């Protein structure tokens, strides 16, 4: 096996430096803004505001098996176990008065503002409203109507663009600073470069054998989500690409003896990354692509032909993967299956994420009908390790692998 990517060490240093910067912002003249993972971070970067992603934190909470513990703090306060576990663990961390039980980085830095874009789910609005109440900080909501069919209508572009104007006013009010539109334009171009190079990173897995798997992508996605709009992201991924190319040149795959290539759908099961990675590797199967990390590989802010940059932002941030109709999602999945040459689809039916999970039965059916390839649905939860039935998941995955072995 190729072992861990060398870049992982650099990633750790890169993200640690970012968190130190964010954690030490309090008392300095820098402001901290919590923002949803699909939110337009470029505005924060352009205004020198430190972006902090509670969802990224949720992933760390899950990966360090602290989800159940933190969720319990929220549950004691009355939040149901049926509420999203990213939100529950985050709120749990806020409610915990034990400094050793606030999460893997000792809790997130306190925000000066909350930016909530509902292009990923309606849950984030309820979550950010809750944080706004508990921490008494202002929240700005960017409402991006779902594009069920067709292209984005003009009235939606105008509506979302108007909200981006309001977003600027909100940021200027909180920071008491003016947004330099030239700087926003510059950051937008850098963000586009970041997205393009992240796409290139992911496309490296079209090589056979794939030099990394989706499990690596889940880890290395941190910069594109968190620091999009900064040059460091491009620099980091350039080095990662070099490493992946080196592996490909030498014919080294992320797993030994890659026989099956699979596509993953939904947020990872953060608390089972190692187990699932080992399971698939033991079955000579590489998860070569996923719908989750690819969601950050196509958001291009194209001003050409647009009324203004804010309309370009509306067009870039509205029809993203989780904000489109199920049939459009199926098209994306089939496209990825084609690009990466996959043999089957693994769908994580995630209790905590309805926009991602509801509709997966149709996705699986259509994927099979239209590509002839098999799929398997496993039940779980991204962060709350208590919602995981190991025996059931193993049985389903083993049956799926047996079917693949018989077919391929």
């Amino acid at each position, binding site marked *: 096996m190729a072992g861990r990517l060398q870049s992982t060490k650099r990633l750790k240093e890169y993200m640690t430096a970012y968190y130190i910067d964010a954690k030490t912002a309090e008392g300095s003249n820098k402001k901290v803004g919590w923002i949803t993972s699909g939110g337009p971070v470029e505005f924060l970067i352009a205004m020198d505001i430190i972006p902090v992603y509670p969802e990224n934190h949720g992933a760390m909470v899950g990966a360090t098996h602290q989800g159940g513990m933190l969720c319990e703090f929220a549950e004691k306060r009355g939040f149901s176990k*049926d509420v*999203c576990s990213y939100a529950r663990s985050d709120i749990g961390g806020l409610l915990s008065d034990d400094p050793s039980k606030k999460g893997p980085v000792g809790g997130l830095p306190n925000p000066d503002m909350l930016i909530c874009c509902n292009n990923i789910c*309606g849950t984030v609005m309820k979550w950010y409203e809750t944080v706004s109440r508990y921490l008494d900080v202002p929240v700005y909501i960017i409402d991006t*109507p779902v594009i069920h069919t067709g292209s984005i209508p003009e009235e939606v572009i105008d*509506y979302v663009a*108007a909200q981006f104007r309001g977003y600027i006013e909100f940021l200027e009010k909180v920071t008491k600073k003016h947004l330099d539109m030239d700087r926003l334009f510059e950051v937008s171009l850098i963000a586009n470069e970041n997205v393009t190079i992240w796409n290139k990173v992911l496309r490296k897995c079209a090589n056979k054998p794939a030099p990394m798997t989706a499990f690596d992508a889940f880890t290395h996605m941190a910069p594109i989500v968190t620091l999009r709009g900064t040059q460091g992201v491009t620099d980091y991924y350039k080095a990662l690409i070099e490493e992946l190319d080196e592996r490909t040149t030498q014919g080294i795959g992320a797993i030994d003896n890659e026989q099956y290539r699979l596509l993953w759908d939904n947020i990872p099961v953060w608390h089972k990354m190692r187990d699932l990675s080992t399971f698939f590797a033991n079955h000579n199967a590489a998860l070569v692509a996923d719908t989750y990390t690819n969601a950050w590989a196509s958001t291009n802010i194209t001003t050409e032909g647009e009324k203004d940059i804010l309309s370009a932002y509306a067009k870039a941030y509205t029809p993203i993967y989780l904000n489109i109709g199920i049939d459009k999602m199926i098209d994306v999945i089939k496209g990825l299956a084609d690009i990466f040459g996959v043999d089957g689809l693994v769908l994580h039916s995630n*209790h905590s994420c309805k926009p991602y999970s*509801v509709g997966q039965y*149709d996705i699986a059916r259509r994927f099979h009908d239209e590509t002839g390839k098999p799929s398997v649905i496993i039940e779980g939860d991204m962060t709350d390790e208590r919602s995981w039935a190991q025996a059931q998941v193993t049985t389903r995955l083993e049956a799926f692998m047996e079917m693949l072995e018989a077919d391929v």
Partner: protein
Amino acid sequence: MLLGNKNINEYIKSIKNPIIAYMCTYMPEEIIIACHLHPLRIIPTNDGPDRSNAYLQTYVCPVGKGMLNWGLNNPYENLKGVVVPHSCDTIQKLSDIWRINHITEFHHDLVLPVDMTKDYAEKYTISILKKLLDTLGRVGRPATDKSLHEAISLMNKVRKRIRSIDRTKMSARQFFEICISAMVMDKKEFLENTVDIPLMDSKGKPAMVVGNMIYDMNIFEIFDRVGLKIVDDDICPGSRYFETDVNEGLSPIEGIAKRIIDRPICPTKHTHMYREDYILNKVRKSLAHGVIFIYQQFCEPHLFDYPHIKDALAKEDIPSLFIEIEPSENISQQIYTRLEAFSEMLSQ
């Protein structure tokens, strides 16, 4: 005649005009009526086999499952289509499932704004309402200014009629059956049937009910049996349907849009006022002694608001009770006992 759980389906079969079903009280029924169509709130009735499991996971709410099942088992020849106002994530996905599986011939997504605090929400609402009007005009008959004004006037009368009813002088079941009837019946027929509602003295302890789409009338019957008098509510088939009217002095679409923006808060929307403040105001005004939360299981938007409302009530020493109804469950003895105990506590 008014409708209960048992005779809804029979009534639907007798509807003359083509039916447009909808999934949420954010639906502006005026637009359907103006296009000479019959608006029908989908009330899952658990008739027919449960076919929703082939489309929806076990953790999807019974409301979503029930509505999908209703569509899949649809026995109504007159059902032309469905309009889905965007509310929660589940309904958004349910809409796609409905559309791609061609459950009805006509399908329309009404993707309403979520943040009602911003001025541009109204402008956007007006544009999507105009599109809906145009689309429905092709399913039924094109709306005219006159048909729109008449539809608005009719819906205002329906809402006023419900508000005029003294709910403290009838059982909770009876009151919510009136609300459900308004969502299903021909509006003129509804008005004719609600002129003289028999009233009675109800001596129960005053309480308010807060929840989501509760359509099983048996739960409300328990309130009556354990001595609880529901003096106000914040549920989908209740005040969120009938409070606030369309301003008839405005142009029709503008008036309808303004009502959507200003109507009682649903947890899927963001407004200037958090729901705990809204509920607290209602409790104070109605002089309710306690609040019963009743949720269909897995309803995330409501479950997010619950701790905040519960805490706000506790600060004011207003007792509350949380009840969650599981999928396809007959109202259990346990729920009865808990409501009975709550009622006894209120009288102490």
